[in-house]
């Protein structure tokens, strides 16, 4: 495990911290892209070059850009940042942080438990991945395809600008 990993890991952690502390959503998203890129480096270091490429292309490229465009479309200006500032008072941090650090401690403890022989990093070729994807996991692939399809349809349906629909339950509770 070389220096490259530690640098990439440090960048990933730092940028993620930046993500969760920003008030401006644009800044946060850009930091998240940095985080994703460094995680892609880590993927590469763990012998998954194809996955690293996918991480960059789909996650950082497609998904993040989708969110960024979405944010831009809603044109959330400084008002949101102000909201964010007012919501994220230091007091809000304390409880969740303690809880999560406890959780992290437990995770680390479990990870550090000796389990099996410590192996070196082994490269798994994209070919192998492809073979097993379209071999034993073909059904899962189909399902993933259907999920994406459903995502498209759902997004289209929900995203349509139609006249304001108030759900009947919401309506009754309002009255």
């Amino acid at each position: 495990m070389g220096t490259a990993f530690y640098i990439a890991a440090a960048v990933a952690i730092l940028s993620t911290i930046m993500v969760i502390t920003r008030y401006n959503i644009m800044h946060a998203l850009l930091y998240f892209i940095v985080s994703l890129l460094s995680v892609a480096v880590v993927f590469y270091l763990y012998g998954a070059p194809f996955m690293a490429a996918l991480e960059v292309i789909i996650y950082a490229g497609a998904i993040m850009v989708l969110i960024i465009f979405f944010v831009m479309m809603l044109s959330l200006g400084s008002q949101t940042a102000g909201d964010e500032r007012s919501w994220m008072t230091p007091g809000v941090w304390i409880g969740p942080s303690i809880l999560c650090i406890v959780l992290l401690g437990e995770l680390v403890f479990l990870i550090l438990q000796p389990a099996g022989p410590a192996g070196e990093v082994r490269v798994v070729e994209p070919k192998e991945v492809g073979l097993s994807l379209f071999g034993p996991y073909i059904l899962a692939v189909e399902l993933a395809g259907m999920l994406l399809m459903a995502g498209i349809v759902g997004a289209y349906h929900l995203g349509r600008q139609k006249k304001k629909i108030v759900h009947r339950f919401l309506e009754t509770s309002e009255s």
Partner: protein
Amino acid sequence: MINPTTAGLILAGILFILGLISMLIRRNIIFMLVSVEIMLNAAGLAFIVAASKWGQPEGQVMFMFILAMAAAEVSVGLALILQLYHQLKTLDSDEASRMRG
């Protein structure tokens, strides 16, 4: 020196926890979506590390599924946020609490 698997998993854990903290403290619903993405990504990292430890392709296969799911989730999630924003004129998730028991 800790071995690569442990190091990778700890990194995944840290990233996941950071996402979780974000999830807990944010009220802006877009940020919450992003937090979910952070956590999904961390989970994917754990799979990759595991794949490299055992030298098996299954970990990477799982990552691909996570990727596909994240994509679908983001698209539907964003559409929902859009609707919510149109109806409530805010992104505060606490405002969308009318379906309480």
